[in-house]
Protein backbone atom coordinates (compact mmCIF):
# COMPACT_ATOMS: atom_id res chain seq x y z
CA UNK A 1 0.00 0.00 0.00
CA UNK A 2 1.58 3.28 -1.01
CA UNK A 3 1.48 6.11 1.55
CA UNK A 4 -0.41 8.53 -0.69
CA UNK A 5 -3.37 6.16 -0.76
CA UNK A 6 -3.23 5.83 3.02
CA UNK A 7 -3.41 9.60 3.52
CA UNK A 8 -5.51 10.26 0.41
CA UNK A 9 -2.73 12.38 -1.02
CA UNK A 10 -2.29 14.62 2.04
CA UNK A 11 1.13 15.23 3.51
CA UNK A 12 0.31 17.92 6.08
CA UNK A 13 -1.12 16.78 9.41
CA UNK A 14 -4.00 18.97 10.56
CA UNK A 15 -2.13 19.66 13.81
CA UNK A 16 1.53 19.82 14.55
CA UNK A 17 1.54 18.41 18.06
CA UNK A 18 3.33 15.13 17.46
CA UNK A 19 6.93 14.20 17.87
CA UNK A 20 8.44 10.73 17.86
CA UNK A 21 7.87 10.11 21.54
CA UNK A 22 4.41 11.62 21.94
CA UNK A 23 2.20 8.96 23.49
CA UNK A 24 -1.15 8.22 21.88
CA UNK A 25 -4.08 6.46 23.52
CA UNK A 26 -7.31 5.33 21.96
CA UNK A 27 -10.77 5.96 23.30
CA UNK A 28 -12.28 2.50 23.37
CA UNK A 29 -15.86 3.63 23.06
CA UNK A 30 -15.61 5.32 19.68
CA UNK A 31 -17.18 3.56 16.68
CA UNK A 32 -14.72 2.41 14.05
CA UNK A 33 -17.16 2.59 11.15
CA UNK A 34 -16.01 4.65 8.22
CA UNK A 35 -12.34 4.43 9.15
CA UNK A 36 -9.78 3.25 6.62
CA UNK A 37 -8.09 -0.10 7.31
CA UNK A 38 -4.93 1.66 8.49
CA UNK A 39 -6.85 3.83 10.97
CA UNK A 40 -8.68 0.76 12.25
CA UNK A 41 -5.40 -1.01 12.70
CA UNK A 42 -4.01 2.05 14.48
CA UNK A 43 -7.00 2.10 16.84
CA UNK A 44 -6.58 -1.60 17.56
CA UNK A 45 -2.89 -1.03 18.32
CA UNK A 46 -3.62 1.78 20.76
CA UNK A 47 -6.51 0.04 22.52
CA UNK A 48 -4.17 -1.88 24.81
CA UNK A 49 -2.47 1.18 26.25
CA UNK A 50 -0.34 4.14 25.31
CA UNK A 51 2.07 3.80 22.39
CA UNK A 52 4.58 6.31 21.14
CA UNK A 53 4.25 7.78 17.65
CA UNK A 54 7.44 6.00 16.62
CA UNK A 55 6.07 2.64 17.75
CA UNK A 56 2.78 3.19 15.94
CA UNK A 57 4.62 4.08 12.74
CA UNK A 58 6.79 1.02 13.05
CA UNK A 59 3.82 -1.31 13.62
CA UNK A 60 1.91 0.18 10.71
CA UNK A 61 5.08 0.04 8.60
CA UNK A 62 4.48 3.58 7.46
CA UNK A 63 6.86 6.54 7.46
CA UNK A 64 6.52 8.60 10.63
CA UNK A 65 5.43 11.67 8.68
CA UNK A 66 2.59 9.70 7.10
CA UNK A 67 1.59 8.25 10.46
CA UNK A 68 1.33 11.78 11.86
CA UNK A 69 -1.27 12.63 9.21
CA UNK A 70 -3.37 9.63 10.28
CA UNK A 71 -2.94 10.42 13.97
CA UNK A 72 -3.97 14.04 13.56
CA UNK A 73 -7.10 12.90 11.70
CA UNK A 74 -7.96 10.56 14.54
CA UNK A 75 -7.36 13.27 17.15
CA UNK A 76 -9.66 15.56 15.11
CA UNK A 77 -12.38 12.91 14.99
CA UNK A 78 -12.03 12.27 18.72
CA UNK A 79 -10.78 8.69 18.42
CA UNK A 80 -7.46 9.15 20.16
CA UNK A 81 -5.83 11.50 22.62
CA UNK A 82 -2.17 12.40 23.03
CA UNK A 83 0.07 12.79 26.04
CA UNK A 84 3.57 14.09 26.21
CA UNK A 85 6.11 11.45 27.17
CA UNK A 86 6.64 10.47 30.80
CA UNK A 87 9.93 12.00 31.93
CA UNK A 88 12.40 9.35 33.02
CA UNK A 89 12.87 9.21 36.80
CA UNK A 90 15.52 11.46 38.33
CA UNK A 91 18.33 9.25 39.53
CA UNK A 92 20.00 10.38 42.78
CA UNK A 93 23.41 11.82 42.22
CA UNK A 94 26.42 9.56 42.58
CA UNK A 95 28.04 11.96 45.02
CA UNK A 96 25.01 11.80 47.37
CA UNK A 97 25.03 8.01 47.24
CA UNK A 98 28.75 7.99 47.93
CA UNK A 99 28.22 10.24 50.99
CA UNK A 100 25.44 7.95 52.29
CA UNK A 101 27.71 4.94 51.80
CA UNK A 102 30.57 6.66 53.57
CA UNK A 103 28.22 7.63 56.43
CA UNK A 104 26.94 4.06 56.76
CA UNK A 105 30.47 2.67 56.72
CA UNK A 106 31.45 5.21 59.40
CA UNK A 107 28.45 4.13 61.55
CA UNK A 108 28.87 0.38 61.18
Amino acid at each position, binding site marked *: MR*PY*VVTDGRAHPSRNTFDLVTLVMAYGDRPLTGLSPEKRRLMELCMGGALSVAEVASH*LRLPVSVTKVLLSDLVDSGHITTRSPIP*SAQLPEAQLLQEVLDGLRARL
Partner: protein
Amino acid sequence: MTDHISEVMVWCLAAVAAVVLVLLLRQHRITTTVRKRNAALEGSLRARDAELQHLVAVRLPAVADASGGPAPLPGLLDDRLAGTDYARSLQSVMELFQQAVEKAQVKADMSAKAALKASMRALQGLAHEQQLSISEMQERHDNPDVLRDLLEIDHANSQFGRRAQAIAVLCGSWPGRQRAASPLIDVVRGATSRIRDYRRVQVHSQIDIAVISRAVEPVVLAVAELLDNAARHSQPNTKVEVSLQPVHNGACVVIDDAGVGMDGQEVQRAVAWLSGRRPVDVARLGDPPQFGFPVIGMLAARYGFSVSVDTRSPYGGVRAVLFLPSALLTHLEPDVSHAQQEPAAVPAAEPRPATPSAETRLSVAPLHAGALPRTAPERPGPATTRRGSTSPPPAGCPSAAAGSRPAGRPTTGPPPPPPPPHLPAALGPLRRGAPRPLGGGDRPAHGRLRPGHPVRSCGEP
Protein backbone atom coordinates in the same frame (compact mmCIF):
# COMPACT_ATOMS: atom_id res chain seq x y z
CA MET B 1 -15.33 -32.72 -134.66
CA THR B 2 -15.23 -29.26 -133.22
CA ASP B 3 -18.55 -29.99 -131.55
CA HIS B 4 -16.96 -32.94 -129.80
CA ILE B 5 -14.08 -30.86 -128.68
CA SER B 6 -16.24 -28.08 -127.34
CA GLU B 7 -18.44 -30.61 -125.55
CA VAL B 8 -15.44 -32.21 -123.92
CA MET B 9 -14.22 -28.78 -122.93
CA VAL B 10 -17.54 -27.92 -121.34
CA TRP B 11 -17.53 -31.19 -119.38
CA CYS B 12 -14.03 -30.63 -118.31
CA LEU B 13 -14.80 -27.11 -117.20
CA ALA B 14 -17.88 -28.33 -115.38
CA ALA B 15 -15.85 -30.99 -113.62
CA VAL B 16 -13.14 -28.51 -112.69
CA ALA B 17 -15.74 -26.07 -111.48
CA ALA B 18 -17.36 -28.78 -109.38
CA VAL B 19 -14.01 -29.77 -107.89
CA VAL B 20 -13.13 -26.15 -107.22
CA LEU B 21 -16.52 -25.58 -105.63
CA VAL B 22 -16.09 -28.60 -103.39
CA LEU B 23 -12.61 -27.46 -102.46
CA LEU B 24 -13.83 -23.95 -101.77
CA LEU B 25 -16.66 -25.22 -99.60
CA ARG B 26 -14.28 -27.44 -97.64
CA GLN B 27 -11.81 -24.62 -97.29
CA HIS B 28 -14.56 -22.34 -96.04
CA ARG B 29 -15.65 -24.88 -93.46
CA ILE B 30 -12.08 -25.37 -92.27
CA THR B 31 -11.50 -21.63 -92.10
CA THR B 32 -14.67 -21.10 -90.10
CA THR B 33 -13.70 -23.83 -87.65
CA VAL B 34 -10.21 -22.44 -87.26
CA ARG B 35 -11.55 -18.93 -86.80
CA LYS B 36 -13.94 -20.13 -84.14
CA ARG B 37 -11.21 -22.06 -82.41
CA ASN B 38 -8.94 -19.03 -82.57
CA ALA B 39 -11.65 -16.84 -81.11
CA ALA B 40 -12.24 -19.36 -78.32
CA LEU B 41 -8.55 -19.61 -77.59
CA GLU B 42 -8.18 -15.85 -77.62
CA GLY B 43 -11.14 -15.56 -75.27
CA SER B 44 -9.65 -18.11 -72.95
CA LEU B 45 -6.29 -16.36 -73.05
CA ARG B 46 -7.94 -13.03 -72.26
CA ALA B 47 -9.85 -14.64 -69.42
CA ARG B 48 -6.64 -16.08 -68.00
CA ASP B 49 -4.86 -12.74 -68.33
CA ALA B 50 -7.75 -11.04 -66.59
CA GLU B 51 -7.74 -13.77 -63.92
CA LEU B 52 -4.02 -13.30 -63.35
CA GLN B 53 -4.49 -9.53 -63.11
CA HIS B 54 -7.37 -10.14 -60.67
CA LEU B 55 -5.05 -12.36 -58.60
CA VAL B 56 -2.35 -9.70 -58.44
CA ALA B 57 -4.61 -6.70 -57.99
CA VAL B 58 -7.34 -8.09 -55.73
CA ARG B 59 -6.91 -11.58 -54.37
CA LEU B 60 -3.31 -11.43 -53.08
CA PRO B 61 -3.72 -7.97 -51.49
CA ALA B 62 -6.84 -9.32 -49.77
CA VAL B 63 -4.73 -12.12 -48.27
CA ALA B 64 -2.10 -9.63 -47.13
CA ASP B 65 -4.71 -7.36 -45.52
CA ALA B 66 -6.74 -10.12 -43.90
CA SER B 67 -6.36 -9.68 -40.11
CA GLY B 68 -6.68 -13.37 -39.46
CA GLY B 69 -10.42 -12.93 -39.20
CA PRO B 70 -13.04 -15.20 -40.68
CA ALA B 71 -13.71 -12.83 -43.63
CA PRO B 72 -14.02 -14.83 -46.92
CA LEU B 73 -11.28 -14.18 -49.47
CA PRO B 74 -12.29 -13.13 -53.07
CA GLY B 75 -12.55 -16.06 -55.53
CA LEU B 76 -12.24 -16.48 -59.32
CA LEU B 77 -13.29 -13.65 -61.62
CA ASP B 78 -14.49 -15.96 -64.43
CA ASP B 79 -16.46 -19.03 -63.43
CA ARG B 80 -15.62 -20.75 -66.76
CA LEU B 81 -12.16 -21.40 -65.36
CA ALA B 82 -13.48 -23.15 -62.26
CA GLY B 83 -12.13 -26.67 -61.94
CA THR B 84 -9.40 -26.22 -64.53
CA ASP B 85 -5.73 -26.88 -63.85
CA TYR B 86 -5.17 -23.19 -64.29
CA ALA B 87 -7.61 -22.34 -61.46
CA ARG B 88 -6.00 -24.97 -59.22
CA SER B 89 -2.57 -23.48 -59.87
CA LEU B 90 -3.88 -20.04 -58.98
CA GLN B 91 -5.31 -21.46 -55.73
CA SER B 92 -1.90 -22.96 -54.92
CA VAL B 93 -0.30 -19.57 -55.43
CA MET B 94 -2.90 -18.05 -53.07
CA GLU B 95 -2.22 -20.65 -50.40
CA LEU B 96 1.54 -20.31 -50.64
CA PHE B 97 1.23 -16.55 -50.40
CA GLN B 98 -1.11 -16.88 -47.42
CA GLN B 99 1.35 -19.11 -45.58
CA ALA B 100 4.20 -16.72 -46.33
CA VAL B 101 2.19 -13.77 -45.03
CA GLU B 102 1.19 -15.64 -41.87
CA LYS B 103 4.76 -16.70 -41.22
CA ALA B 104 6.00 -13.14 -41.69
CA GLN B 105 3.29 -11.79 -39.40
CA VAL B 106 4.05 -14.30 -36.66
CA LYS B 107 7.73 -13.51 -36.96
CA ALA B 108 7.14 -9.75 -36.87
CA ASP B 109 4.76 -10.10 -33.92
CA MET B 110 7.20 -12.25 -32.01
CA SER B 111 10.12 -9.93 -32.55
CA ALA B 112 8.01 -6.87 -31.69
CA LYS B 113 6.81 -8.57 -28.52
CA ALA B 114 10.30 -9.69 -27.57
CA ALA B 115 11.67 -6.18 -28.05
CA LEU B 116 8.79 -4.57 -26.16
CA LYS B 117 8.96 -7.12 -23.37
CA ALA B 118 12.69 -6.62 -22.86
CA SER B 119 12.39 -2.83 -22.81
CA MET B 120 9.39 -2.91 -20.49
CA ARG B 121 11.15 -5.26 -18.09
CA ALA B 122 14.05 -2.84 -18.01
CA LEU B 123 11.67 0.06 -17.33
CA GLN B 124 9.94 -1.98 -14.64
CA GLY B 125 13.28 -2.57 -12.99
CA LEU B 126 14.01 1.14 -13.02
CA ALA B 127 10.57 2.00 -11.65
CA HIS B 128 11.10 -0.53 -8.92
CA GLU B 129 14.51 0.89 -7.98
CA GLN B 130 13.04 4.36 -7.97
CA GLN B 131 10.24 3.23 -5.71
CA LEU B 132 12.75 1.91 -3.19
CA SER B 133 14.57 5.24 -3.22
CA ILE B 134 11.30 7.12 -2.81
CA SER B 135 10.29 4.89 0.11
CA GLU B 136 13.63 5.51 1.77
CA MET B 137 13.24 9.25 1.32
CA GLN B 138 9.75 9.13 2.78
CA GLU B 139 11.21 7.44 5.84
CA ARG B 140 14.06 9.90 6.09
CA HIS B 141 12.31 13.24 5.70
CA ASP B 142 9.91 14.44 8.30
CA ASN B 143 9.03 17.70 6.60
CA PRO B 144 5.42 17.73 5.31
CA ASP B 145 6.38 19.90 2.31
CA VAL B 146 9.03 17.40 1.26
CA LEU B 147 6.64 14.53 1.92
CA ARG B 148 4.01 16.11 -0.29
CA ASP B 149 6.42 16.27 -3.21
CA LEU B 150 7.58 12.73 -2.53
CA LEU B 151 4.00 11.47 -2.53
CA GLU B 152 3.47 13.03 -5.95
CA ILE B 153 6.65 11.48 -7.32
CA ASP B 154 5.69 8.18 -5.76
CA HIS B 155 2.27 8.31 -7.40
CA ALA B 156 3.70 9.12 -10.82
CA ASN B 157 6.23 6.32 -10.45
CA SER B 158 3.50 3.80 -9.55
CA GLN B 159 1.55 4.67 -12.69
CA PHE B 160 4.70 4.43 -14.77
CA GLY B 161 5.43 1.00 -13.32
CA ARG B 162 1.91 -0.20 -14.02
CA ARG B 163 2.01 0.87 -17.68
CA ALA B 164 5.30 -0.89 -18.20
CA GLN B 165 3.99 -3.95 -16.38
CA ALA B 166 0.80 -4.08 -18.47
CA ILE B 167 2.70 -3.92 -21.76
CA ALA B 168 5.17 -6.54 -20.55
CA VAL B 169 2.28 -8.86 -19.61
CA LEU B 170 0.71 -8.31 -23.01
CA CYS B 171 3.97 -9.40 -24.59
CA GLY B 172 3.96 -12.65 -22.67
CA SER B 173 5.78 -11.69 -19.49
CA TRP B 174 4.69 -12.79 -16.00
CA PRO B 175 2.92 -10.14 -13.95
CA GLY B 176 5.84 -9.77 -11.59
CA ARG B 177 6.70 -10.59 -8.06
CA GLN B 178 4.96 -13.26 -6.07
CA ARG B 179 3.19 -11.64 -3.15
CA ALA B 180 1.84 -12.93 0.10
CA ALA B 181 -1.85 -13.77 0.25
CA SER B 182 -3.66 -10.48 0.88
CA PRO B 183 -7.11 -9.35 1.94
CA LEU B 184 -9.26 -8.49 -1.07
CA ILE B 185 -9.75 -4.95 0.21
CA ASP B 186 -5.97 -4.43 0.22
CA VAL B 187 -5.72 -5.90 -3.26
CA VAL B 188 -8.27 -3.37 -4.49
CA ARG B 189 -6.58 -0.49 -2.68
CA GLY B 190 -3.24 -1.58 -4.08
CA ALA B 191 -4.80 -1.38 -7.54
CA THR B 192 -6.22 2.05 -6.69
CA SER B 193 -2.75 3.35 -5.86
CA ARG B 194 -1.57 2.69 -9.41
CA ILE B 195 -4.03 4.88 -11.29
CA ARG B 196 -4.03 8.59 -11.92
CA ASP B 197 -7.35 9.49 -10.26
CA TYR B 198 -6.98 7.37 -7.15
CA ARG B 199 -8.76 9.98 -5.01
CA ARG B 200 -11.99 9.46 -6.98
CA VAL B 201 -12.18 5.77 -6.14
CA GLN B 202 -14.34 4.82 -3.19
CA VAL B 203 -14.22 1.28 -1.89
CA HIS B 204 -17.28 0.10 0.01
CA SER B 205 -17.98 -2.99 2.05
CA GLN B 206 -15.25 -4.82 3.83
CA ILE B 207 -15.43 -8.56 3.45
CA ASP B 208 -13.15 -10.91 5.25
CA ILE B 209 -11.79 -12.67 2.19
CA ALA B 210 -8.23 -12.84 0.95
CA VAL B 211 -6.72 -13.58 -2.44
CA ILE B 212 -4.20 -16.42 -2.66
CA SER B 213 -0.63 -15.39 -3.16
CA ARG B 214 -0.34 -16.61 -6.76
CA ALA B 215 -3.24 -14.44 -7.89
CA VAL B 216 -2.57 -11.23 -5.94
CA GLU B 217 -0.45 -9.41 -8.51
CA PRO B 218 -2.56 -10.37 -11.57
CA VAL B 219 -5.76 -9.34 -9.79
CA VAL B 220 -4.17 -6.04 -8.68
CA LEU B 221 -3.15 -5.35 -12.28
CA ALA B 222 -6.55 -6.30 -13.74
CA VAL B 223 -8.47 -4.22 -11.18
CA ALA B 224 -6.09 -1.30 -11.78
CA GLU B 225 -6.81 -1.42 -15.53
CA LEU B 226 -10.57 -1.54 -14.90
CA LEU B 227 -10.39 1.36 -12.42
CA ASP B 228 -8.26 3.38 -14.81
CA ASN B 229 -10.77 2.80 -17.60
CA ALA B 230 -13.65 3.77 -15.33
CA ALA B 231 -11.90 6.94 -14.14
CA ARG B 232 -10.74 8.02 -17.59
CA HIS B 233 -14.15 7.59 -19.18
CA SER B 234 -16.10 9.57 -16.62
CA GLN B 235 -16.19 13.21 -15.53
CA PRO B 236 -13.44 14.31 -13.13
CA ASN B 237 -16.03 15.42 -10.58
CA THR B 238 -17.67 11.99 -10.33
CA LYS B 239 -16.73 9.08 -8.12
CA VAL B 240 -15.82 5.56 -9.16
CA GLU B 241 -17.59 3.22 -6.76
CA VAL B 242 -16.10 -0.16 -5.92
CA SER B 243 -17.93 -2.75 -3.89
CA LEU B 244 -16.75 -6.18 -2.84
CA GLN B 245 -19.40 -8.87 -2.71
CA PRO B 246 -19.10 -12.43 -1.54
CA VAL B 247 -21.07 -14.74 -3.85
CA HIS B 248 -21.95 -18.44 -3.72
CA ASN B 249 -18.78 -19.75 -5.36
CA GLY B 250 -16.33 -16.90 -4.97
CA ALA B 251 -16.31 -13.13 -4.69
CA CYS B 252 -16.94 -10.20 -7.00
CA VAL B 253 -15.28 -6.82 -7.34
CA VAL B 254 -17.93 -4.53 -8.82
CA ILE B 255 -16.73 -1.25 -10.33
CA ASP B 256 -19.33 1.37 -11.28
CA ASP B 257 -18.56 4.61 -13.05
CA ALA B 258 -20.82 7.51 -13.89
CA GLY B 259 -19.38 7.97 -17.36
CA VAL B 260 -20.69 7.82 -20.89
CA GLY B 261 -20.98 4.04 -21.09
CA MET B 262 -20.15 1.98 -24.17
CA ASP B 263 -22.15 1.45 -27.36
CA GLY B 264 -23.00 -2.01 -28.69
CA GLN B 265 -19.95 -2.27 -30.91
CA GLU B 266 -17.56 -1.20 -28.14
CA VAL B 267 -19.13 -3.72 -25.77
CA GLN B 268 -18.72 -6.48 -28.37
CA ARG B 269 -15.09 -5.62 -28.90
CA ALA B 270 -14.49 -5.47 -25.14
CA VAL B 271 -16.17 -8.85 -24.59
CA ALA B 272 -14.01 -10.37 -27.33
CA TRP B 273 -10.84 -9.05 -25.68
CA LEU B 274 -11.93 -9.97 -22.16
CA SER B 275 -12.61 -13.56 -23.18
CA GLY B 276 -8.85 -13.92 -23.56
CA ARG B 277 -9.36 -16.13 -26.61
CA ARG B 278 -8.55 -13.44 -29.14
CA PRO B 279 -4.89 -13.52 -30.12
CA VAL B 280 -3.14 -10.28 -29.25
CA ASP B 281 -1.25 -8.61 -32.07
CA VAL B 282 0.68 -5.71 -30.60
CA ALA B 283 0.79 -4.03 -33.99
CA ARG B 284 -3.01 -3.84 -34.15
CA LEU B 285 -4.01 -2.26 -30.86
CA GLY B 286 -5.00 1.03 -32.42
CA ASP B 287 -3.47 4.46 -32.13
CA PRO B 288 -3.00 5.26 -29.29
CA PRO B 289 -2.76 1.54 -28.46
CA GLN B 290 -5.54 0.28 -26.18
CA PHE B 291 -3.85 -2.11 -23.81
CA GLY B 292 -6.41 -2.32 -21.02
CA PHE B 293 -8.92 -4.95 -22.11
CA PRO B 294 -6.40 -7.21 -23.90
CA VAL B 295 -4.24 -7.27 -20.75
CA ILE B 296 -7.20 -8.05 -18.49
CA GLY B 297 -8.40 -10.78 -20.84
CA MET B 298 -4.97 -12.34 -20.94
CA LEU B 299 -4.62 -12.33 -17.15
CA ALA B 300 -8.16 -13.62 -16.65
CA ALA B 301 -7.57 -16.54 -19.02
CA ARG B 302 -4.22 -17.34 -17.45
CA TYR B 303 -5.28 -17.21 -13.80
CA GLY B 304 -8.88 -18.34 -13.97
CA PHE B 305 -10.91 -15.29 -13.01
CA SER B 306 -13.39 -13.59 -15.31
CA VAL B 307 -14.40 -10.03 -16.13
CA SER B 308 -17.58 -8.72 -17.69
CA VAL B 309 -18.39 -5.16 -18.75
CA ASP B 310 -21.70 -5.65 -20.56
CA THR B 311 -24.00 -4.31 -17.84
CA ARG B 312 -24.89 -0.72 -17.15
CA SER B 313 -24.00 0.89 -13.86
CA PRO B 314 -26.80 2.52 -11.86
CA TYR B 315 -25.10 5.85 -12.62
CA GLY B 316 -25.48 5.42 -16.37
CA GLY B 317 -21.89 4.40 -17.03
CA VAL B 318 -20.27 1.00 -17.25
CA ARG B 319 -20.44 -1.64 -14.55
CA ALA B 320 -17.38 -3.88 -14.63
CA VAL B 321 -17.58 -7.07 -12.59
CA LEU B 322 -14.46 -9.09 -11.82
CA PHE B 323 -15.42 -12.53 -10.55
CA LEU B 324 -12.89 -14.46 -8.47
CA PRO B 325 -13.71 -18.16 -8.13
CA SER B 326 -13.24 -19.84 -4.73
CA ALA B 327 -10.05 -21.48 -6.00
CA LEU B 328 -8.34 -18.06 -5.94
CA LEU B 329 -9.63 -17.08 -2.49
CA THR B 330 -8.58 -17.93 1.03
CA HIS B 331 -9.04 -16.76 4.60
CA LEU B 332 -6.24 -15.28 6.64
CA GLU B 333 -6.22 -16.61 10.17
CA PRO B 334 -4.87 -14.42 12.94
CA ASP B 335 -2.17 -16.32 14.80
CA VAL B 336 -1.41 -14.71 18.14
CA SER B 337 1.18 -17.16 19.46
CA HIS B 338 3.26 -16.53 16.38
CA ALA B 339 3.45 -12.85 17.18
CA GLN B 340 4.73 -13.55 20.66
CA GLN B 341 7.38 -15.94 19.45
CA GLU B 342 8.54 -13.75 16.67
CA PRO B 343 7.94 -10.10 17.22
CA ALA B 344 9.81 -9.56 13.98
CA ALA B 345 6.90 -10.96 12.03
CA VAL B 346 4.18 -8.82 13.51
CA PRO B 347 2.08 -8.13 10.45
CA ALA B 348 1.32 -4.64 9.41
CA ALA B 349 -2.23 -5.17 8.45
CA GLU B 350 -3.71 -8.44 9.35
CA PRO B 351 -7.44 -8.30 8.80
CA ARG B 352 -8.67 -8.42 12.38
CA PRO B 353 -5.78 -8.72 14.79
CA ALA B 354 -6.43 -9.54 18.37
CA THR B 355 -5.82 -6.54 20.59
CA PRO B 356 -2.28 -7.01 21.81
CA SER B 357 -1.98 -7.62 25.51
CA ALA B 358 0.40 -5.59 27.62
CA GLU B 359 2.82 -8.53 27.68
CA THR B 360 2.78 -8.78 23.93
CA ARG B 361 3.30 -5.09 23.70
CA LEU B 362 6.29 -5.29 25.98
CA SER B 363 7.75 -8.21 24.10
CA VAL B 364 7.33 -6.36 20.87
CA ALA B 365 8.99 -3.23 22.10
CA PRO B 366 12.02 -4.14 24.17
CA LEU B 367 13.02 -0.63 25.14
CA HIS B 368 15.53 -0.20 27.89
CA ALA B 369 15.44 2.66 30.29
CA GLY B 370 16.57 5.88 28.86
CA ALA B 371 16.21 4.65 25.34
CA LEU B 372 13.79 7.35 24.46
CA PRO B 373 15.31 10.79 24.44
CA ARG B 374 13.49 13.29 26.55
CA THR B 375 12.88 15.64 23.71
CA ALA B 376 12.45 14.98 20.09
CA PRO B 377 15.73 15.01 18.25
CA GLU B 378 16.21 17.80 15.82
CA ARG B 379 15.28 16.90 12.32
CA PRO B 380 18.39 16.05 10.42
CA GLY B 381 18.90 17.80 7.17
CA PRO B 382 19.25 15.79 4.04
CA ALA B 383 23.01 16.02 4.20
CA THR B 384 23.46 14.81 7.77
CA THR B 385 24.81 11.35 8.12
CA ARG B 386 23.51 9.04 10.73
CA ARG B 387 25.84 7.59 13.30
CA GLY B 388 25.68 3.91 13.88
CA SER B 389 23.08 2.51 16.19
CA THR B 390 24.41 1.90 19.66
CA SER B 391 21.93 -0.78 20.61
CA PRO B 392 23.01 -4.32 19.93
CA PRO B 393 21.21 -5.78 16.99
CA PRO B 394 18.91 -8.71 17.64
CA ALA B 395 20.45 -12.13 17.25
CA GLY B 396 20.73 -13.29 13.72
CA CYS B 397 20.18 -9.87 12.32
CA PRO B 398 23.01 -7.90 10.80
CA SER B 399 23.42 -4.48 12.22
CA ALA B 400 21.05 -2.25 10.41
CA ALA B 401 23.23 0.78 10.22
CA ALA B 402 26.15 0.57 7.92
CA GLY B 403 28.06 2.84 10.25
CA SER B 404 27.80 0.41 13.14
CA ARG B 405 29.80 -2.31 11.50
CA PRO B 406 32.96 -3.11 13.33
CA ALA B 407 35.81 -1.43 11.57
CA GLY B 408 37.71 -3.64 9.23
CA ARG B 409 34.96 -6.19 8.83
CA PRO B 410 34.31 -6.67 5.16
CA THR B 411 30.77 -6.16 4.06
CA THR B 412 29.36 -8.90 1.96
CA GLY B 413 26.53 -8.31 -0.40
CA PRO B 414 24.47 -5.17 -0.53
CA PRO B 415 24.29 -3.27 2.76
CA PRO B 416 20.96 -3.64 4.56
CA PRO B 417 18.81 -0.53 4.54
CA PRO B 418 19.55 1.69 7.52
CA PRO B 419 16.64 2.61 9.75
CA PRO B 420 15.37 6.13 9.33
CA PRO B 421 17.83 8.57 10.83
CA HIS B 422 15.30 10.36 12.96
CA LEU B 423 14.48 7.24 14.96
CA PRO B 424 16.12 6.83 18.30
CA ALA B 425 18.74 4.14 18.35
CA ALA B 426 16.67 1.85 20.50
CA LEU B 427 13.93 1.75 17.92
CA GLY B 428 16.30 0.28 15.36
CA PRO B 429 15.39 -3.31 16.25
CA LEU B 430 11.72 -2.41 16.17
CA ARG B 431 12.09 -0.98 12.72
CA ARG B 432 14.05 -3.92 11.56
CA GLY B 433 11.48 -6.16 13.09
CA ALA B 434 8.91 -4.82 10.72
CA PRO B 435 10.60 -4.95 7.36
CA ARG B 436 8.91 -2.73 4.89
CA PRO B 437 7.59 -4.42 1.82
CA LEU B 438 10.03 -4.21 -0.96
CA GLY B 439 9.51 -4.29 -4.59
CA GLY B 440 6.04 -3.45 -5.60
CA GLY B 441 5.83 -0.95 -2.80
CA ASP B 442 2.14 -0.68 -3.34
CA ARG B 443 2.15 -4.16 -2.06
CA PRO B 444 -0.99 -4.77 -0.13
CA ALA B 445 -0.13 -5.34 3.48
CA HIS B 446 -0.23 -9.03 4.09
CA GLY B 447 -1.77 -11.06 6.76
CA ARG B 448 0.05 -12.99 9.36
CA LEU B 449 2.57 -15.39 8.01
CA ARG B 450 1.76 -18.97 8.70
CA PRO B 451 4.36 -21.30 10.14
CA GLY B 452 6.47 -22.57 7.33
CA HIS B 453 5.99 -19.40 5.37
CA PRO B 454 9.38 -17.98 4.51
CA VAL B 455 10.03 -14.94 6.65
CA ARG B 456 12.23 -12.40 5.01
CA SER B 457 15.44 -11.88 6.91
CA CYS B 458 15.97 -8.40 8.17
CA GLY B 459 18.91 -7.58 5.99
CA GLU B 460 17.35 -8.72 2.75
CA PRO B 461 17.68 -6.05 0.11
